[in-house]
């Protein structure tokens, strides 16, 4: 475990005049899960593509498992696996054909590739779909097959680019379980996500990326301490009384109250979640009817607001952009 899984210094990638990745320094030890958190177009995918030797950096240094991305890309490719943002599968082929294709490329004979494929499909609960074309798979099934494809031989380092984007919550939990299993098996995982909750659930350390730069780095605990542990969302029954509620919340919690665009909604960033109860009592004492009173993780937007002072406004003109359209569709 002497060499770090990933070590970069001043990594830069430009597309035309815009720097998609603008000087990133990372030090990721082997073992565990490292989360890269950021909005669309922050440069997450570009960074991963450089580390997976798909894109040549324009400047800076990067070593993956001790190997230079410029001079030893082939050695790196022997040790990594990549699961892209959009399933890295051939949609026209069936599940078993996809795994056989990868198995044969990784050096198995046709027969061994097939039996390896059958074994993996079984373990991932995809046996029934083995002979179906991947384009007919659900989002969750696609993700599982995609990850199975990365496990034909066990990689030392696995890149997962937004592994739960566009899949339902139940499939998301399955994918999380799979990721935890892999880490227990000794693989290092670098995962990108747009959701603080996901990074918090899985990652040992998180780097927050915005416009191609790392703006914060640390354990989930450290980051949340910076941002506040949670967000209290309140929705009053009568929008006319929102101001009144805001004053009560601000007085009892002694912190800033954010007025949402929804004319009945308020959000408060909490340092200490236990004080939420006293706020609820204070609202009841003033006979203020409340429709919603919920404690939750701060959203990515709130994290950004706390870290940078600006919102995640740039639905960028870079490679990440289609994700937003796909999610909207």
């Amino acid at each position: 475990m002497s060499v770090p899984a990933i070590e970069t210094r001043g990594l830069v990638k430009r597309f035309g005049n815009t720097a998609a990745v603008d000087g990133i320094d990372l030090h990721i030890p082997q073992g565990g899960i490292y989360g890269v958190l950021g909005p669309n177009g922050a440069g997450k995918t570009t960074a991963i593509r450089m580390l997976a030797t798909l894109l040549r950096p324009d400047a800076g240094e990067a070593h993956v498992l001790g190997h230079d991305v410029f001079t030893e890309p082939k050695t790196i490719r022997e040790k990594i696996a990549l699961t892209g943002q959009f399933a890295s599968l051939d949609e026209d082929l069936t599940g078993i054909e996809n795994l056989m294709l990868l198995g044969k490329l990784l050096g198995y004979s046709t027969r061994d590739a097939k039996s390896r494929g059958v074994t993996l499909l079984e373990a991932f609960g995809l046996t029934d779909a083995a002979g179906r074309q991947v384009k007919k798979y659900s989002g969750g099934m696609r993700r599982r097959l995609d990850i199975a494809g990365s496990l034909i031989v066990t990689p030392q380092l696995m890149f997962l680019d937004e592994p739960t984007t566009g899949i339902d919550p139940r499939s998301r939990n399955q994918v999380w379980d799979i990721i935890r299993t892999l880490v227990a098996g000794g693989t290092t995982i670098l995962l990108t996500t747009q959701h603080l909750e996901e990074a918090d659930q899985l990652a040992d350390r998180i780097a927050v990326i915005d416009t191609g730069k790392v703006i914060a780095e640390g354990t989930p605990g450290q980051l949340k301490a910076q941002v506040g542990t949670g967000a209290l969302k309140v929705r009053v029954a009568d929008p006319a009384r929102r101001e009144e509620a805001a004053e009560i919340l601000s007085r009892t919690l002694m912190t800033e109250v954010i007025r949402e665009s929804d004319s009945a909604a308020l959000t408060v960033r909490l340092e200490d979640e236990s004080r939420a109860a006293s706020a609820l009592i204070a609202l009841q004492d003033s006979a203020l009817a409340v429709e919603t009173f919920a404690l939750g993780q701060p959203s990515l937007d709130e994290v950004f607001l706390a870290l940078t002072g600006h919102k995640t406004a740039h639905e960028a003109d870079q490679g990440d952009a289609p994700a937003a359209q796909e999610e909207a569709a």
Partner: protein
Amino acid sequence: MTTTAQDQSQKIRSVLVPAEQRPAPAGAVSASLTYGWRALLKIKHIPEQLFDVTVFPIMMTVMFTYIFGGAIAGSVDGYVQWLIPGIFVQTMIMITMYTGLTLNRDISKGVFDRFRSLPTWRPAQLVGALLGDQIRYVLAGTIILIVGFVMGFRPEGGLTGVVMAFVLLLLFSFSLSWVWTVISLLVRTEQAAMGISMFIMMPLTFASNIFVDPETMPSWLQGAVEVNPVSVVVTAIRELMAGMGDFGSVTLVLVYCAVLIGVFGPVSMYFYNRKS
């Protein structure tokens, strides 16, 4: 729910292959053949993509023979012996264009990111795609020859001459495909690839000896027609099919093939490796 999750975790853990048990990655040849196998699987799943190599050749052969036959040679019967080898080359070359178009669509998909992250010889991804296309070319070529035969084409060179001509043309088609590969990697959309390919294709096929004897053309054009690789191929194919195979013309075709691969192969890989 928790027990099933645990079951699944256990199952997944049990199927992980320890690093020391993994085989060595596929070599260049085996990787290329595997990508070729992928192309065949695609034909199996999407047989519609064979439309261009079945209907198009029939249309081309019948149309060009009957439209130009009378006008150029005075009679269709006499023209068929001369034209069919030319049509054979022209149609096949036009079909190679689709290789570039398909590749343009294919490469932009996520699966190519995964292919490129594998520890195999990178050109295999393109070589394999082109090898898979050989099946399409064989199908198209066979159809042209059958239609030609029905229309009265009787090659003097017999089966041997035809087979040798066929093999030579397949080799040339494979070599020429690298030109379209470069284009498909350079342009953003399929339409643009189509436009540029046509722009190259039209003079290449018409400023050649496919349809008419170059002696009827102005002298400056004759010079261009003579060095046109398509003319060189057509000449060699005509000779082979007529049973008058000439070592010189065949060698010249092989030289052209080597130059096409030698130039456009590395250029393709240059752009392929830098494709973002």
